[in-house]
């Protein structure tokens, strides 16, 4: 057992993308709820109390979406009341609630995705597909702090020379442009020198290989297979119409066919899996620490 974030990036990628792609595009309230719960559990498990504070604005977003939809969407047969000659329907209220779940769930999944997929993990993913692209990406990632430091140096020396102040917008723009122009010249020359050095050391002669610190172990394969299988099962269920939901014109009851239930269970398992892995690892860590 290890924490969800410590699995091989390939498995993590397919797991989160599988859950999020269903939670992003399907309109079945049960699936959306499961996706939201899984996303929230993972985010809180990873961020604890600090995460709770960050979550404060999500209910607001949820409310805005849930209230906003019935005001603009007048489809549906059950009219609750009439506002400015426009009917507000029960169906559109339900639809707004589902939209809110979807929006918040998706944002939370991608929040956790950005946190887990640090640049080295993303580079590993890119590198598996395209070594050349991965090389450009990793060089760019290195250049950014380098250029920022260089820009700061240039900025200080130019200001010390009295070439501009920073108290009004045209002056700030002028200063920014000056620094930027100096930076560009320096960066291009520096880059060409790097390129020459690479050529001198034999870049481009052999095939490009890639260093990766991530191993693909049996547990990673299990997570990958589980994610793919559960995602495929959910997609099949949606395609065959075993799960799914119509809001308009009238709300349909949730179908409870055996296959549909299987789909709900498997999607729920997939959605909660990251949080379960994360929490069980945290508990194990605590118990090991208390045993010392």
């Amino acid at each position, binding site marked *: 057992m290890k924490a969800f974030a410590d699995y091989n990036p390939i498995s993590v990628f397919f797991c989160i993308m599988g859950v999020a792609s269903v939670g992003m595009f399907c309109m079945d309230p049960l699936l959306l709820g499961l996706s939201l719960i899984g996303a929230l559990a993972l985010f809180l498990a990873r961020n604890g109390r600090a995460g709770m504070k960050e979550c404060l604005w999500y209910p607001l977003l949820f409310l805005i979406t849930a209230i906003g939809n019935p005001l603009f969407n007048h489809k549906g047969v059950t009219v609750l009341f009439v506002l400015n000659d426009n009917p507000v329907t029960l169906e559109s209220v339900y639809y707004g609630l589902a939209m809110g779940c979807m929006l918040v769930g998706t944002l939370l999944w991608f929040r956790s995705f950005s946190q887990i997929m640090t640049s080295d993990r993303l580079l590993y993913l890119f590198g598996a597909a395209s070594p050349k692209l991965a090389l450009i990406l990793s060089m760019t990632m290195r250049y950014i702090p380098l*250029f*920022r430091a260089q820009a700061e140096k240039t900025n200080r020396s130019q200001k010390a020379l009295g070439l501009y102040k920073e108290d009004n917008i045209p002056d700030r723009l002028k200063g920014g442009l000056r620094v930027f122009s100096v930076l560009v010249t320096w960066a291009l020359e520096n880059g060409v020198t790097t390129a020459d050095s690479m050529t001198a050391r034999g870049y481009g002669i052999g095939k490009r290989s890639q260093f990766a610190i991530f191993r693909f172990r049996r547990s990673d394969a299990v997570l990958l297979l589980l994610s793919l299988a559960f995602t495929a099962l959910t997609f099949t269920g949606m395609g065959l119409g075993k799960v799914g939901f119509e809001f308009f014109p009238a709300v349909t009851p949730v179908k409870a066919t055996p296959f549909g239930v299987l789909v709900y269970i498997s999607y729920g398992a997939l959605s909660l899996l990251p949080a379960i892995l994360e929490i069980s690892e945290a508990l194990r860590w605590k118990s090991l620490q208390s045993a010392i």
Partner: protein
Amino acid sequence: MIFVIKNEKLRRFLKFVLPWIAIPAVVALGVFAFGEKRYAFISVCVVILATVLFCAGFEKRTVGTRRLIVIAVMTALSVVGRFVFAPIPGFKPITAIVVITAVYLGGESGFMVGALSAVISNFYFGQGPWTPFQMFAWGMIGYIAGLLQNPLKKSRVALGIYGVFAGAAFSCIMDVWTVLWYDNAFHWELYLSAIVTALPFMVSYAISNVVFLLLLGRPFGEKLERIKIKYGV
């Protein structure tokens, strides 16, 4: 167990198959599975497909070391530009740098700089379902600028007009995504209202693009030309 496919033939086969068969298959699956939400799903797939195909083409071609580095440098500059100009709200030089790269180094380099800038700047500003759309939008802005290389290089007016066009195009492409995601199908009224709400952003994009292109275009171009002559990129 390490995740590397040793067989060279199998690898080449996969590289060919993945973009041409797998992604259309995903599109078909989306149509089959998502009924009413299929437009949003398909649009994401098409955008990813286009970007992947472009990158695959780039991977296959032999690109000189120097050109490779210049692409990395320009991408890094466009991301750093966001920090340098951070004191002035709404001013981002990414589009301008993408266009300038495309004009002086060709459309393909422009596409790569645009797409990579989107991925990398989102490391700092947050990845999300919008990342593929930003990659596609900035990439295409670069690619089209590469096609219009000659008029854009010669006339500053054309460069300014292209800046306005690029600002509007970026905003419009991103709104397609907003509308599709929010309301299943594509409704013109909703799209128009989304564009109207996004109008201030669109105007600020367009203005900053024009300012940056006019201010940076010549000097930047001269620098790139100088590098080209001095080192033969």
